[in-house]
């Protein structure tokens, strides 16, 4: 009974993660400029990773495997904003201007 519930939870989490990844890929393609695409890339790094790895952690129970899964999630959560910031900062310094819809163009 517990196994069945865990299996169903894993199915839901992995499906949600896969859906998130597909939306991310779509976002990388159809968003208009680099800065907006960074948001799409960051989405894959956070919720999709968390969904898929937590889903797998439910299957492995209290073992070293779960600890490793959590470690990877934490590691990605710490490094992903650093990489995103470095990317945004480098392209900003290089003079790449973001496309703004004329909405509160205060500092650009």
């Amino acid at each position, binding site marked *: 009974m517990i196994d069945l519930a865990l299996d169903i939870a894993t199915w839901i989490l992995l499906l949600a993660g896969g859906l*998130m990844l597909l*939306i*991310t890929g*779509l*976002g990388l393609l*159809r*968003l*208009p*400029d680099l*800065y*907006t695409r*960074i*948001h*799409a890339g*960051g*989405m894959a790094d*956070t*919720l999709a990773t*968390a969904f898929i790895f937590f889903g797998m952690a439910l299957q492995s129970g209290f073992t*070293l495997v779960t*600890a*490793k899964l959590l*470690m990877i999630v934490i590691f990605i*959560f710490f490094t*992903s*904003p*650093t990489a*995103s*910031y470095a990317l*945004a*900062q480098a392209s*900003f310094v290089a003079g790449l201007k*973001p*496309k*703004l*819809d004329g*909405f*509160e*163009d*205060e*500092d*650009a």
Partner: protein
Amino acid sequence: MIRTVSLFFVLLAVWLLLSGHYTPLVTGLGVFSCLLSALIAHRMDVVDHEGQPLHLGPRIIPYWGWLMAEIFKANLDVAKCILSPKSHLRPSMFTVTASQKSDLGKVIYANSITLTPGTVTVDLDGDRVLVHALTVGSAEGVKAGDMDRRVTKVMEEHL
């Protein structure tokens, strides 16, 4: 010195979690390598309050919980935006002021902004944070300053 000791225990915990082999010889080698790494780091003088933020203590845990909830909400926002860019996509760029005094506090704040999808820190200069936001909602979320207050509370810097 206390930071070197805590570095040793953190390294040891990571080693024990990743290894999975607990024979006396292998464990001994693991303890030895952790000790060596901690000593070398101590001698290189790279063990500081930024690498081992012990002073934050357990206050950061509830902040992480709150941040996870924010990330979840923001992800749905960005997903909506990707699926129908015409009606949701309103990119904007603006400056907010970080109220944290220490570098570590500013880094935690800027990284939290970037980690939340829909907002990315583009530049951090002094206490001015240049933010690029994807939608109206995410821009308002940063401007409201809720995250800023929470990070300041974690750092326990009362202004």
